[in-house]
């Protein structure tokens, strides 16, 4: 018996990394999954690998019309919508001094406003029959990085956006739960691109490995398992919570 039978999930950023792992694990637990990503080609590929339980749609989370279309495609394909995983996001290096306004705007547009747009549509739809929203924040949304200024700010915003939505829905008696997940360093294309852009990728990698006491590297599935828990009824009492999955990075 699947832990997410009857669930219908829309996963943004589902073509890569954490989103793709979440889509696979949700489908393995019985959910039907719409992979929604700006990279439509990779989205099709991931959906095909999963099989009959998955489909894909092109989505730019920064674009309102694109969101409407992705939700319509989900309802059309599966006849409902009960889980939203907001995993689409971008990472840019930059401090308060080095960061350009353009980078700041783009990070906010995708990481914060993109998540906000998805939540707005999900709440409107799910308030009738219930659902679960899972937002990808980061440990950087709890403890800032000096050279990850806009990124940290965007993830901090997602953390409190999540709590506000959780309280709003709960106050109205709607069965819509909303939680954030805070990954540490996870082996995804985002991370590998980030390392490649560093002056000394090896040193940067070694430094990050030091940050996590556990001494193993995090894989996308490590976050995917938490997302399955939050999507399932096992977490029916959990809302407005922030779930840290970080190899112990924040413990000290």
């Amino acid at each position: 018996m699947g832990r997410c039978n009857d669930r219908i999930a829309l996963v943004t950023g589902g073509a890569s990394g954490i989103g793709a792992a979440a889509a696979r694990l949700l489908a393995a637990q019985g959910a039907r999954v719409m992979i929604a990503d700006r990279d439509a080609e990779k989205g099709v590929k991931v959906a095909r690998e999963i099989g009959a339980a998955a489909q894909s749609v092109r989505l730019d989370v920064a674009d309102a019309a694109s969101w409407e279309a992705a939700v319509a495609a989900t309802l059309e394909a599966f006849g409902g919508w009960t889980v939203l995983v907001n995993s689409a996001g971008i990472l840019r290096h930059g401090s308060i001094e080095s960061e350009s306004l353009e980078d700041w705007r783009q990070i906010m547009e995708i990481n914060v406003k993109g998540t906000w747009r998805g939540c707005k549509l999900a709440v409107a739809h799910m308030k009738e029959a219930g659902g679960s929203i899972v937002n990808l924040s980061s440990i950087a949304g709890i403890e800032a990085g000096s050279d990850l200024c806009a990124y940290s700010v965007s993830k901090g915003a997602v953390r409190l956006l999540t709590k506000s939505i959780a309280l709003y829905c709960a106050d109205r008696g709607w069965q819509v739960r909303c939680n954030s997940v805070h990954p540490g360093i996870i082996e995804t294309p985002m991370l590998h691109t980030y390392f490649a852009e560093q002056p000394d990728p090896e040193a940067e990698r070694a430094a990050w490995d030091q940050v996590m006491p556990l001494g193993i590297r995090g894989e996308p599935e490590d976050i995917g398992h938490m997302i399955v828990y939050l999507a399932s009824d096992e977490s029916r009492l959990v809302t407005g919570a922030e779930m840290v999955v970080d190899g112990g990075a924040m413990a000290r």
Partner: protein
Amino acid sequence: MSGRLKNKVALVTGGASGFGRASAIRLAEEGALVCVTDVNEAEGEATAAMLGNRGFFHRMDVTSDGDWTDTMRAVLGRYAKLDVLVNSAGVAAAQDNIEECDDAVWDFVMDVNLTGTYLGCRHAIAPMRRAGGGSIVNLASVLALKGEGGALAYCASKGGVRLLTKAVAVHCGHDKNGIRCNAICPGYMLTAMLYDFLDTLNDREGEHARLASMHALGRLGDADDVAQMVLFLASDESRFVTGTEMVVDGGFTAG
């Protein structure tokens, strides 16, 4: 049985009641062999009976170093290893505010909640290291994150458990022994602990309603809600999770 804890051996303290009992049942359902411990023998035996051939009861007072040694011997004797420790034994007390809380109340609450958890972590490390790793799950509380006037020693003990957990996690990480250590912070839940407290009041219903209203979801959860998180943290699904506190609280701390 979907086997999320296949081949794992677990020790649960406070297993006679509440979260401990619900966790023992949930872990066994997913394939674990479980040693149930408590000072309450009758109810502890009852929990073990619910597990069929997947568990046994061993009496233990978590505040006794000697009892821990004895219990570890029993678990290792029966199942040859230890993978999971759930520290759920805990107490709350009346007259637990800064003006009324005396030495006796303070020591009672601190001994069971904090010293008991510390002893459990200490005794679990060696066998878990030999097993190539393990998972320790400590029951803290939302009162490790927010204050409550009538729960002075309780808040102090649970705040202690929260950071004890992190210190153990960091130590085990540096030691590369494969042991993870996490805390759960439940909101107010419908277990014997809460019913016992409500029974001391004249306005039982009123207090229940007041407590429920402090949780955004407007209701109190039950032991199964916590057991599901215990299961996640005990299983290899959480192999990258350590030193953190997982809130299961109906939105108590969200606002």
